[in-house]
């Protein structure tokens, strides 16, 4: 055996090994402890702030789901129930009919129902909505801004890194606590106010 002199005796090597093992174990424990002290038992989920969103249409195509988790929602408390809804009708649509060609929504997801003269109620069929935000843009530009986009948590997978968030040009996405998973407009925002 040529390298005998370089060899550390087995016992001492064992001792070193064991001490390193303990030290590393304690370090991991320590890191774990620090992390636990900063943790919350609650999950964080992704949501977009409708007050920052510019309705760029990226939400509809950048979600990892084939059909985006982002849908349009409607704040009834803010809505003017207009006959001439700028979120429902194409700009410049001369006839206020409900034909597909005069609707703003590419998938016909907005349902218009007569309430009483001169008011109309607009509801969104989430199964049809693709989250493009065209209606929200219309409503935001010329109406009360009662139509807006939200990440719907019955569909969202809650990816560790939301693939829309990093492509959002207005940086509207953030992590929010799971108990307050929506950022709502109008009176509905009271729903998740901290008591």
């Amino acid at each position: 055996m040529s390298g005998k002199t370089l060899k550390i005796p087995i016992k001492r090597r064992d001792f070193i090994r064991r001490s390193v093992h303990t030290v590393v174990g304690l370090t991991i424990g320590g890191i774990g402890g620090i992390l636990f002290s900063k943790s919350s038992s609650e999950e964080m989920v992704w949501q977009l702030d409708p007050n920052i969103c510019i309705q760029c249409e990226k939400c509809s195509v950048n979600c990892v789901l084939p059909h985006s988790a982002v849908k349009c929602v409607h704040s009834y408390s803010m809505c003017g129930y207009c006959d001439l809804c700028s979120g429902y009708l194409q700009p410049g649509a001369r006839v206020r009919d409900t034909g597909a060609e005069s609707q703003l929504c590419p998938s016909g997801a907005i349902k218009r129902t007569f309430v009483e003269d001169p008011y109309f109620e607009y509801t969104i069929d989430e199964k049809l909505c693709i989250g493009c935000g065209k209606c929200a843009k219309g409503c935001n530009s010329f109406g009360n801004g009662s139509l807006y986009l939200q990440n719907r948590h019955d569909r969202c997978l809650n990816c560790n890194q939301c693939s829309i968030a990093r492509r959002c040009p207005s940086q509207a996405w953030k992590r929010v606590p799971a108990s307050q998973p929506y950022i709502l407009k109008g009176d509905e925002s009271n729903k998740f106010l901290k008591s």
Partner: protein
Amino acid sequence: MIQSRIHRGKIFIFAFLFVFPLFCMSQVPERFPKPDFQTDYTRPDLLTPTPRATALEYIDIFVLVAALSLASYFAHKQRSRRNIFLLMVFSLAYFGFFRKGCVCSIGAIQNVSYVVFNPAYAIPLTVIVFFILPLVFTLFYGRTFCAAVCPLGAIQDAVVLKPTQVPSRLENVLGVLPYIYLGLAVLFAATGAGFIICQYDPFIGFFRFGADFNMVILGMSMLLLGTVVARPYCRYLCPYGVLLNWLSRLSKKHVRITPDECNNCRLCEESCPFGAIKKPDEDVPLETKQVDVKRLAVLFIVLPVVLLGSGWVGSRLYAPLSRGHATVSLAEEILLENSGKRTEMTNATKAFRASGKPTEELFAEANSIQHNFKVGGWIVGGFIGLVLCLKLIGLFMRKRQIEYDVDKGKCLSCGRCFAYCPYEQVRLGIITPEEADKMGSREVKPKQFRA
């Protein structure tokens, strides 16, 4: 005259470009009064479906603990490749396809780095557990997490068809990549630029049956490559694998190829698809040993130089790296537009200008982020330099190897090599001890079986 008209026109365009969007995008005023309904119409409720319940997250934790315990039991006590394989399939189904690959231990590195530098972020309990537990198990039992629990490892393991051995030089070079990836991932997460491990996860698209085109191509080629180079992501990219590698070397217990004593029959030599089996050294003459000591001394002298050098390179890379942060890239676009080098506004700059935030504030933010990238670049660069040096030192300071054994850092405890050992076959009652001893001296192929 003409000049001033042009000037006026410019002002008008300016006003139109900046003030108009400002007007329509700032908090929308109530343009139409809320109606007073005469009929008994009541406003519908806005439905807000809740996220997945936290209770279900605890099920994930439970499954993780159970899977890790079982994996260690199968590898150490049963030494059963078949059971490890079955557990791996289960993990692939549960953590991969059912839980859609999120959150995983690999990605959790980023949440941990993020919370250290952004105290406002409350890191969820599940993420901590997914980060810490596999590390703890590895410190005690080796990388059994990789063998049967990690969904990314599992999907690659499932396609290992005709593994070839990677030349050791190439292996050494490629082996540096995970350290670089780890450094960058921590840097990006810590500075708040984003989670690149998640962004460039090649397999997540398979778990979700959908991803963007480039990622699908990347995932496909990774799996295709994985048929001949076993688990390429695990060996040459996985940043969590770096941590597991370190801890596995210190592990209290680690799987061994033979349940008994190695008699250097060489039967297991080629059995590991991951190149994790260490062969016994041929006797090294004394002179080379002394040469090695000399080289070692030289290495210790150049070490600080390498450290500083790579740290410097890392910090110099701040400009391209920091562009990965949305705030920095936005600030650069605004700068381009303000200096007139670009006339067309992007969505991002439009949104920023509409928000009414002062440009100075944005620039100050961007500057401080760039500063963080510079400091972080020093650290990450230094870290990579250190790794390079340690790798070189490791090449010269190899412990004497007298038998076939697993390389504790690289071995994933998958159990493939066990059955190649004749003494394992004795343990299983397939052959008698006498036959096993003979196999050592003669080059006889044992009865082989694989799970």
